[in-house]
């Protein structure tokens, strides 16, 4: 993995009595999209703020694109762009003025910044809104402009802190496509989100954080596998026969009977097993209203491991 990408080791950050990060360790390889997942207040944004040099850690270390965040903050800032939780733009300026401003601050000349702004407006489908003030933009347009503002310089590492929070499904899908394009260009992306679906869609690997600690990490499919395999849910027409169903199938493993739902869940079931199950129920004269295979979702992992309802 070398020195590029991101290495985080034992990060600790306290705010007064509160410990926001209690020893966070993970790595992101170059070109990888790493999803930082966790409930509100888990420490995702604090982690991003330390990695983007906004906060100094109390202990531990981190390197970003080969530079130490504490001892070489200026070099780190050259390699990164931060898209915060709230679209951080100047409301009084137009779209093109915002992009030109950030271009100038990244060292482009006036005309180069302007040219780059036009390019980005084109790419992020904001040409028509270019000369309108940001205060008149919709949520989706702001996020797109925010993302565009992170790309005025060709930085290798992007931090996207909850980039789709509060967006409608269509704007979210658009933004997801844009993030995929950014990854295709070879950028390393740290994406924080509380949306499991978002992490599932975009992230190569997921680091699940809760209470300032890494609870688990792995690819989305690793994590889902850790929550158990596919299960089969059987719903008899007559809920009164649930216990009978459970007795008939109890050789298939530890079943769970959900009386309130009128269902029995059979663990570790493959599609090939379904006809045998149906046949057995048919022979016993039990009519089946619904029979389905259920894959574990990241929600199952999330709820299993974070322990509180989110």
């Amino acid at each position, binding site marked *: 993995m070398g020195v590029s990408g991101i290495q985080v080791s034992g990060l600790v950050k306290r705010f007064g009595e509160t410990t926001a990060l209690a020893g966070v360790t993970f790595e992101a390889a170059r070109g990888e999209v790493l999803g930082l997942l966790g409930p509100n207040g888990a420490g995702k944004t604090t982690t991003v*703020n330390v990695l*983007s*040099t*906004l*906060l100094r850690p109390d202990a531990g270390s981190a390197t970003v694109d080969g530079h130490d965040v504490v001892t*070489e903050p*200026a*070099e780190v*800032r*050259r390699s*990164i*762009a*931060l898209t*915060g*939780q*709230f*679209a*951080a*733009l*100047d*409301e*009084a*300026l137009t779209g093109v*003025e915002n992009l030109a*401003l*950030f271009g*100038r*601050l*990244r*060292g482009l000349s006036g005309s180069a910044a302007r040219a780059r702004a036009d390019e980005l407006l084109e790419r992020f489908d904001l040409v028509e809104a270019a000369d309108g*003030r940001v205060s008149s933009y919709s949520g989706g347009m702001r996020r797109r402009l925010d993302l565009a*503002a992170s790309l005025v310089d060709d930085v290798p590492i992007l931090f996207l802190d909850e980039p789709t929070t509060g967006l409608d499904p269509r704007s979210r899908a658009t933004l997801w496509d844009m993030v995929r394009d950014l990854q295709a260009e070879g950028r390393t992306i740290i994406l924080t989100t509380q949306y499991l679906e978002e992490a599932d869609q975009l992230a190569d690997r997921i680091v699940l954080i809760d209470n300032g600690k890494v609870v688990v990490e792995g690819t989305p499919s690793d994590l889902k596998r850790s929550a158990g395999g596919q299960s089969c849910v059987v719903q008899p027409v007559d809920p009164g026969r649930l216990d009978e169903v459970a007795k008939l199938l109890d050789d298939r493993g530890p079943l769970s009977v959900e009386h309130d739902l009128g269902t029995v869940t059979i663990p570790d079931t493959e599609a090939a097993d379904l006809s045998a199950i149906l046949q057995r129920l048919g022979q016993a004269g039990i009519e089946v209203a619904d029979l389905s295979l259920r894959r574990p979702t990241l929600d199952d992992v999330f709820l299993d491991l974070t322990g509180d309802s989110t």
Partner: protein
Amino acid sequence: MTASGTLLGDGRVLGGRAMLRSARNPATILGAVLFPILFFVLFNLVMRRIMEARGFDYAQLLPPTIVVQAMFFTAMSSAYYVADDRRSGIIARFRSLPIHRSAPLIGRSLGDLSRATVSAVVITALGIATGMRFERGWVWALAYLGLALLFALAVSLGMGLIGYAAPTPEAAASIASTPYLPLIMLSSGFAPVEDFPDWLEPIVRYQPVSVTIDALRATAGTGDLGDTVPLALAWCVGLIIVFAALGSRALERAA
């Protein structure tokens, strides 16, 4: 290639942003130009004859007071803008950029000074139209403008600190409007220092607003330069150093 941009280069870019933002906010123009004009006209109507009957040259005395008051008005926006930048998160974004770490402070100050310049020039022009004269010539007239701007910088850096401490931009704006009233009323601006109660007189005489107003009057010809200008410079430069240092520190911590 250097890792960080230059203080002046980045400061100028951010100054341009601050000026654009001010120019597009009608409330700023109101504070910087219309309110001071209103005060100037009203004080002339209410106080001019009373003061002239007591032997004061009101045409010379009033404009420096209104200029100092206007410097307060222009600086108050600074508290709001800082708090607004914190709320929007743009301060954090600036800090994540490879720019000089004090550039946002310089940019904001340039924006504030541009408003202050417009304001001071408008009020002074109005003063000249109603009989004020720069009796020591144009070099001292420039010194007058320079001192007014130095005072404006000190106040706007102080107001910026309120912007870092306040929970919301609205709170920042209302906190920022508080210190101005006692400072300007308990000064040599509207009434002679001798008219204040004895115990209050020394405070009134040596507080920064009085000292600055007296020095502005002296550069225009009323009063002794040596008694007033060094003291005013000391106050303004001292406040600028303290407030700028605290402001840089607050900026470092704003996330």
